[in-house]
């Protein structure tokens, strides 16, 4: 493997895009403020200067237009990255994503392809009810899409590179609170395959199944718990569709306890599917019911104290883990 360097999640993503653009003239980036501004989260900063406005394309504020045009361009042989500024705005483009991008291949009997990479950001930060949502389950519900949600700079770059080579539509969900996160990433091109989870921490007492920012919350909690001689294993799903079930099940067969930790709502959320499958597939190995820790079932309020209360944090994770081991 190439030399490792320390980079941010943001720069890891940018590097994956830069490498793809250098390699393939058919790659373009289109979205709101991706060009002159450099991206609202600065992920595309510098790419406009390097590749020009022909390839880094500022669009009107028109999400269904952006996804539709990117999908049509992909059908025409291009490899567009369509950036939806935040996942909240993807709601406006839902018809295009679900009825066109996800279905072009199957609906026309495999005669067409629409390999668009839809990059978007989950996250929150006193942005109130409409700008703080976790909609990954909406996309992961749909056959025809690949949905990934990386937690580290390494996974971000490796998964985005895989997405850039894919012939399928990929919904690539970043997290606004992870952009500054630093980590070791190989220099040059490398891939993290879809549908392969990663054990981010080995442990024997309990498995936390999670992804994206909650991986870090879980790791912090696990480090604290280790001081009390509780050893938690952390499985980072990385891909939500497809999900690497074997890695999840194998971990639980070892630890006999499972906590599913997510930032989306509980009811009908990612944790519902994961908990149901664990319960069915590893029933005989479980020493306790599968537990879930998720965002509370409220539209997110603005007030900082209320917002903080809405999400799982290290203290809540530790409390839950201890309760399950008691």
């Amino acid at each position, binding site marked *: 493997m190439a030399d490792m360097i320390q980079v941010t999640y943001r720069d890891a993503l940018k590097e994956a895009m830069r490498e793809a653009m250098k390699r393939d003239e058919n790659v373009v980036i289109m979205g709101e403020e991706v060009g002159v501004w450099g991206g609202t989260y600065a992920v595309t900063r510098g790419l406009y200067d390097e590749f020009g406005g022909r390839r880094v394309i500022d669009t009107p504020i028109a999400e269904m237009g952006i996804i539709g*045009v990117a999908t049509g361009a992909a*059908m025409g042989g291009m490899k567009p990255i369509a950036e939806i500024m935040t996942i909240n705005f993807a709601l406006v483009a839902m018809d295009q994503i679900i009825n066109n991008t996800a279905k072009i291949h199957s609906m026309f*009997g495999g005669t067409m392809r629409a390999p668009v990479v839809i990059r978007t950001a989950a996250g929150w930060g006193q942005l109130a009810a409409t700008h703080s949502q976790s909609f990954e389950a909406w996309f992961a519900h749909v056959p025809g899409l690949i949905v990934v949600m990386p937690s580290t700079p390494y996974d971000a770059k490796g998964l985005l590179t895989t997405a850039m080579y894919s012939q399928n539509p990929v919904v690539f969900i970043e997290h606004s609170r992870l952009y500054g996160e630093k980590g070791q990433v190989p220099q040059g091109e490398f891939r993290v395959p879809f549908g392969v989870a990663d054990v981010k921490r080995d442990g024997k007492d309990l498995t936390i199944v999670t992804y994206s920012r909650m991986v870090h919350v879980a790791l912090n909690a696990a480090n604290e718990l280790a001081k009390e001689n509780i050893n938690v294993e952390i499985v980072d799903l990385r891909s939500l569709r497809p999900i690497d079930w074997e890695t999840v099940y194998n971990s639980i067969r070892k630890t006999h306890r499972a906590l599913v930790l997510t930032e989306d709502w509980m009811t009908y959320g990612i944790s519902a599917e994961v908990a149901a499958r664990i319960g069915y597939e590893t029933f005989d190995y479980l020493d306790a019911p599968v537990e879930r820790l998720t965002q509370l079932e409220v539209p997110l309020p603005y007030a900082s104290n209320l917002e903080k209360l809405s999400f799982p944090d290290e203290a809540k994770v530790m409390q839950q883990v201890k309760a399950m081991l008691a």
Partner: protein
Amino acid sequence: MTTAVAKKVSVATSPSLEISRETALHWLEQMMLIRRFEEAAEYAYTQKKVGGFLHLYIGEESIAVGAVAAMHPDDDIFTHYRDHGWVLARGVDPKPAMAELYGKATGLVKGKGGSMHFASVKHHMWGGYAIVGGHIPLAAGMAFSHQYLKRDRIAFCVMGEGATNIGMFHEALNMAALWKLPVVFLIENNMFGMGTAVDRASAVANIYEKASAYRMPATRIDGNDIELVYTTIQEYVNRARSGEGPQMVEAMTYRFKGHSMGDPQRYRTKEEVENRRPDDPLNRWEKKLIERGWADDALIKETFTRVDKQVAEAVQFAEDSPFPDPSELYTDILVEE
């Protein structure tokens, strides 16, 4: 009847108005083929051989036949779900088309799309789309790829007048105009969005006027006049191809059948439909050819006989074809990689 919003277009002086007898008869045969195909599809539906929705193109055939004749074979067509006529006008074999209606493995898209999703990529026919207006940005995107890759192709986007009231229409038109994309938007105004008359749904009765909001050249024509369709579309396609940006044509027509099968048609009277019969584009073209001395009753009968045989063969092919294998349920969802 022709009016240009941003630019004057002189259809009458177009030199390409001169069409040969051979072309005229070819158009006649294509219109007849679509008419008979639709009638056979309707019959098969009543026999429960065809399921789901079935949107018939009867009464609008001149638009697809005239427009397809006016573009290059590698120009890329996207349509609404009333798509059978467009696919047949593009020269797609009626056999796999009928088999698709039957949901058979030999269908155009392996029985996975049905009536609303006819497509044939090798004919640059990118499909019928069933969410009203959903395909408009796709066509703009295809045009974007042509511009970016410097191809000498345009995208041709067909929609009903009802689609011009939905947001996707406006987002796509804005982006197409902003980036001067090589795309032609054709509005088939058949007077009703399902059962709601145009003036009950659109604040702007002249649909083509909506193009002026995006400084897009546009015109309205009699869509049942196949020669006018041909010459107008040719002019607008040429302008899109030569880098003048997106164009719009509104073709006025009338749907003789219900919106889909099982439409009680409470929104119009039988008299209204009968009053429109003299305007049937197929009858008009037959009459015109007879007037010009290019056809007579015998020739018309002979052409119908040929077309009837072709449609009967298509039905037989569909009947004889196997249903998709159960294993097909899990194919084509993702590209295997």
